[in-house]
């Protein structure tokens, strides 16, 4: 079974968000990394870039697939996990921890209401 931690919210397209102090972290789920297989490349926005909820913000590639990343919420990028550029396998090894992608300052807190709860996301992946 895939790990779906209770401390975050999810998007149908398998991204997650969790609150870290003032910022919101974004990454991809355990299910997503397993579907992709060995991740070999990640393309992410830069600090200061704006995300729009539901829009593409980057790309993750495994040996066998190219997959777009979608923003769960709107906001300004405040940190980028640059370790992923040299070690994209962190996404496979620890998708909810060291494999985080971005920290974002949310533009509209109400957008969190549109995200899936862990239970809802679990139902989707079953």
């Amino acid at each position: 079974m895939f790990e779906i931690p209770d401390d975050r919210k999810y998007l149908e397209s398998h991204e997650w968000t969790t609150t870290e102090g003032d910022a919101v972290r974004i990454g991809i789920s355990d299910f997503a990394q397993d579907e992709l297989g060995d991740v070999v490349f990640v393309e992410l926005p830069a600090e200061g870039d704006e995300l729009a909820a539901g829009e593409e913000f980057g790309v993750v590639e495994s040996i066998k697939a190219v997959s777009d990343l979608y923003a769960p919420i709107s906001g300004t990028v405040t940190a980028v996990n640059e370790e992923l550029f040299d070690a994209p396998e962190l996404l496979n090894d620890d998708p909810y921890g060291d494999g985080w992608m971005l920290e974002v300052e949310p533009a509209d807190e109400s957008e969190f209401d549109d995200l899936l709860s862990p239970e809802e996301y679990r139902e989707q992946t079953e």
Partner: protein
Amino acid sequence: MGLRKPPLYDVHADAGATFTEFGGWDMPVEYDSIKAEHAAVRESVGIFDVSHMSELEVSGPDATALMQRLTTNDVTALEPGDSQYSAIVNDEGIIVDDTVVYRLPDRDERVYLFIPNAGHDEEMYDRWTSFRDEWGLDATVEDVTEEWAMFAVQGPDALDSVTAAAPDAALGDLSKFQATFADVAGVECWVARTGYTGEDGFEVLCPWDDAETVWAALDATPCGLGSRDTLRLEMGYLLSGQDFDPETEPRTPYEAGIGFVVDLDTEFVGRDALDRQREAGVEETFVGFALLDRGVPRHGYDIADADGEVIGVVTSGTMSPTLSEPIGLGYVPVEYADDETEISVLVRGREKRAVIVTPPFIN
């Protein structure tokens, strides 16, 4: 239309494989990790179920004439138990498929077994029988694709692994491209020292119904088509339907870098067109390249020159698991084909710097 399944489909599913469609077959693409499977083949030994490959047997008094006229290499050079890489081309010299041709031990006459790619069996059966009839040759052509399962055991420890299952066969005496019938786990198999990975190894053809016995007897890491692709890409080996394809990527053996399988001293369909191209020289040629910027080249991406002008196309690409560097294959005009020539690959519209590298990419 339903997909064709290899005899061990359920065995692979139970082992946790994920599957992909390839050439009309539902085949394991990955068991656990493409990277780990790739490393197993480079460092020890892996086993691939390649039962989706086609097999056709050609026998009868005119078997040699038929094979000679429909493949580009010289089949008369084959002794019993020898094999050769070859191409099947149309009238214009365009590759329809590539294949390995085996000469089996003689029965009453010479007998050939050749291995077209997955999903090409019907097409090749039609091609062989219609030319046979047109030329009035006396030869029997049989599509035996679903009579033979095929496993590729590849890697530096492949000889040990296959020998453990076939202790009575002196497989170490086979040189590359030689083959023999051998008893593997009590099953008579056709065992050839061939492969598609760049490593030492064997391809084992066994009767479809005995597949599970033979598979179980061969001790090696199960590998899927995902690592088969990354392994062949590191060697610069062509993938039929992708690096050449009569419809979408029409190429001659000279353009595709396999002129060494063309013997113009033999008579075959497409010979005159190839002779003319050999005289005139090719305009575009198959090359390898390494990306200097971050990114992954993929089939269909454009190749540009240093000024950004599109000059060619990527036919295959990946992140090399051995090198952890992005590599690719494709076609460019011959003036760009020298090693170290700077090109770029357009990845989602962005230019990524690359240099020409003549494969293999690894030593």
